[in-house]
C-alpha cells in the first residue's frame, strides 16, 4: 500500500505541475483581459503536434525549444487579429470567440495531421528509469517533466515579482483600469501576455505529448479542467492557481489509487442492498469511477460557498 501512496503522490504532482503550466497562462489572461480562454488547451495540443513534427526532422530537443515559440507567436496573432477585434463586442463575444477557436484548432489539427494517434516518443536520452521503488519504475522523463514545470514556476514567480514588466502585469491583474490610466501600452501587454500564456501551454503540450499520447482529443480531455483550476484558485491569483493545480492533480490521483466506494460506506453503516435495488448504481459506485468528475464537484461547491475562489482577491 505504501508504494501506491508514494506513486499516487508522485503522479499527482506530475499532473499538478503540468496543469499549473496551463493554468498559469490562463489565469494571467483571465485576470488581465477578463477572457476565459476556452482555446487554451487547444494551444497545448498545438504544442504537442508542432513538437511532434519538429521531432521527426530535428529531434526532440529542437521541438522542445521551438514548438512553444511557434505556439506563442500564433497565440499573439490570435490576440492581435482576432480577440482584439471581438473585444469591442464584450466578454460574452470574446468567450464565444475562444470557444469557436478551440473547435477550429481541433478541426485544423485533424486536417493537417490526420485523426490517428501520433507516434510522438520520449527522447532516448531520457528513456531510462530514474529510480525503482518496490518494483515500480519512475521514468526519467517524468522527472524531467517535473523539473521543467518547477523551473517554469520559479521563473514565472521571479519575473512577476522582480521585473518591471512583472510588476506592471501584477498591477494589471488586480487593477486593469489603473494600469491603462498610467499610460502603459495595455494592448501590447495583452498581446504579450496572451502570447506568453499560450507559449506556456504549448510547452506543456510538448512535454506532455509523449507520455499522455498525442491525439486530436487531447485538448478536450484537459480543456475544462484547466478552467476549473483557475476558478477554484481564484481570479487574479497565481498562487491560487498553483495550489488548485496541485490540489486537483493529487485529488484525482488519490481518488484513482483508493479503492473505497459506496459499498465500504454501506458496510460501515451496516446497511446492505440487493443487486436488484433501483438505486443499485448508486450503492455500487466507487471513488476511482468518479475520479474525473471530482474537480467539477469541487468547482460547484467552491463557487457556491466562496465565489471568489480559494485565493481570489477581487470579484468580477
Amino acid at each position, binding site marked *: 500500500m505504501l508504494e501506491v501512496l508514494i506513486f499516487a503522490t508522485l503522479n499527482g504532482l506530475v499532473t499538478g505541475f503540468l496543469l499549473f503550466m496551463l493554468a498559469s497562462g490562463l489565469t494571467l489572461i483571465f485576470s488581465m483581459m477578463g477572457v476565459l480562454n476556452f482555446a487554451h488547451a487547444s494551444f497545448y495540443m498545438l504544442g504537442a503536434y508542432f513538437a511532434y513534427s519538429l521531432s521527426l526532422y530535428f529531434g526532440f530537443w529542437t521541438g522542445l525549444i521551438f514548438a512553444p515559440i511557434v505556439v506563442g507567436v500564433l497565440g499573439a496573432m490570435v490576440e492581435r487579429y482576432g480577440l482584439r477585434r471581438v473585444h469591442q463586442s464584450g466578454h460574452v463575444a470574446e468567450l464565444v470567440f475562444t470557444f469557436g477557436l478551440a473547435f477550429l484548432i481541433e478541426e485544423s489539427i485533424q486536417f493537417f495531421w490526420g485523426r490517428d494517434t501520433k507516434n510522438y516518443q520520449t527522447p532516448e536520452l531520457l528513456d531510462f528509469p530514474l529510480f525503482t521503488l518496490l518494483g515500480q519504475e519512475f521514468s526519467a522523463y517524468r522527472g524531467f517533466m517535473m523539473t521543467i514545470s518547477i523551473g517554469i514556476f520559479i521563473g514565472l514567480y521571479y519575473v512577476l515579482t522582480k521585473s518591471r514588466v512583472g510588476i506592471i502585469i501584477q498591477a494589471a491583474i488586480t487593477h486593469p483600469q489603473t494600469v491603462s490610466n498610467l499610460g502603459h501600452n495595455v494592448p501590447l501587454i495583452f498581446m504579450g501576455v496572451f502570447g506568453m500564456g499560450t507559449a506556456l501551454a504549448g510547452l506543456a503540450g510538448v512535454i506532455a505529448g509523449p507520455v499522455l499520447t498525442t491525439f486530436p482529443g487531447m485538448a478536450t480531455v484537459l480543456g475544462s479542467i484547466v478552467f476549473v483550476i483557475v476558478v477554484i484558485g481564484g481570479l487574479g491569483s497565481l498562487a491560487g492557481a498553483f495550489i488548485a493545480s496541485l490540489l486537483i492533480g493529487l485529488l484525482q490521483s488519490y481518488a484513482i489509487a483508493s479503492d473505497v466506494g459506496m459499498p465500504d460506506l454501506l458496510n460501515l453503516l451496516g446497511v446492505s442492498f440487493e443487486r436488484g435495488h433501483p438505486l443499485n448504481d448508486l450503492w455500487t459506485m466507487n471513488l476511482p469511477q468518479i475520479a474525473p468528475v471530482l474537480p467539477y*464537484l469541487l468547482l460547484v461547491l467552491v463557487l457556491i460557498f466562496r465565489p471568489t475562489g480559494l485565493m481570489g482577491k477581487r470579484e468580477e
Partner: protein
Amino acid sequence: MALLKNSSIWIAFLVTLLGLPLVFDSILAISIMNQIAIAIVFALSYNMLLGQGGMLSFGHAVYFGLGGFLSVHALILIEFETMVFSILWIPLIGGVFGLLAGVFIGSFSTHKAGTVFAMISLGIGELIAASSLIFSSFFGGEAGISGDRTFGPTFFGFDFAQNIEIYYVAAVWAFIATVFMYLFTQTPAGRMANAVRDNPERAEFVGYSSRKVRFISFCASGLFAGIAGGLFALNYEFITEENLNAATSGRVLLMAYIGGLGYFIGPIIGAVVLTLMNSLLSNYSELWMLYLGIMFLLTVMFLPRGFAGFFMMHQLAWIRGNMKMLIKPYIITGIPAVLFAVCVIALIEMSHTEDEVFHYLALELNPASPITWIVLLGIAGGAFYAVKRSLLQLNDAWETANAIPKEEEA
C-alpha cells in the same frame, strides 16, 4: 393591441411551420424540419438565459436532456400501460421536469451572473453528464433508453407511427412554446430580466431582487428546454447521454449566438441555419466541421450581433428608402467574396483528397498538377484583393444610405 398588431407575423409563422411539409415532403426533409422545430424551442429557451437574462450557461443541455429522459420514461410507462394518456402531452412532461431541474439548480446558481454563473453551469453540466453514465439503470448508459410512441390512445385516429405526424405535433408545440416565450418577454418578469441583464445593481434599487429575477428566467428557460427535450423524445423515440452533455450545450450556444442574441428572432434563424448545415453539409464534405468552425469565427468577428443583427442593421436604410443604394455595392463585393470562398474551399478539399481527379462544382481538377494549385491560388488572391478594394466603396455606400437626410436634420 400589440398582440393584434403582431398577429399577422404569428399567423405567417404558424402557416410556414404547418405548410412546409407540403413543399418539402421527402423523408429527409421531414426529418430535418423535425430537428429544426426542436432546435427552435431549445435555442429560444437558451436565449431566455443569455440574450434576455444575461446569464451565460455552458450546461443548458442538462434541462433538455433531463426533460427528454423523463419523456422517454413516460413513453415506456405508456407502452406498459402504467399510465394512459395521449403522447401529445409528452412534451409537457419534459417541460415540467425541466422546470423542476431549473428550480433546484437555479436555487443556488442564480446568485450571481457573469463568470460565477457560467462556471457553475459548466460544473453542473459536467457532473450531470458524468452521472448519467454512472446511473445506467435510469439513463441507459451510452446506448441510452428508447420507447415507442405508437402506444397510448390515438388522436383522431392518428397513431403517430409516421414522422410526418410527429412533425405536426412538434410544429404545434414549437409554435405554442414560441408564443409563450415571446409573451414572457412582454411581462414584468421578462422586462426585469432585461433590466437585470443590463444593470443588476440598479434593478435592486427599483425594488427587485436580481437573484429572484434571474431565478424566474432560469426556471422558465428550464421549462422550455424540457419541452424541447420532450419533443426530441417523441421524434426519435430514444435519448442518450450525448443529449445532455457539453457538446449539446455548446451547440445551443452557437445557435443562439450565430442567430443573434439581442433579437427574439435571432435564435430561430440560428437554429434553422445550424441544423441545415449540420444535416446537409456533413454529407458533402468530410471537412464540414472545419468550415463550420471558420464560419463561426468569422461570424463572431464580423457580425457580432449575429445574422439577425446583420439584417436589423439595414433597418435604418430601409426606413429611409435607401436600400437601392446598397444593392450594387453588395453585388460588387459579393461576387469576388464568393469566388474567394469557392477557391479556398477548392484548395482545402484538394489538399485532402486522395483521388486522381478531383470533382468540384462543374470542374474536374487535377490535384497532382502544380498548375491547378497556382491558378486557384491566383484567383483566390485576386478575389481577395478585389474584396478589399470594393469594401471601401461598400462602406461609403453604407454611410450615404444611412446618413440622416438634410430636412430631417433640420
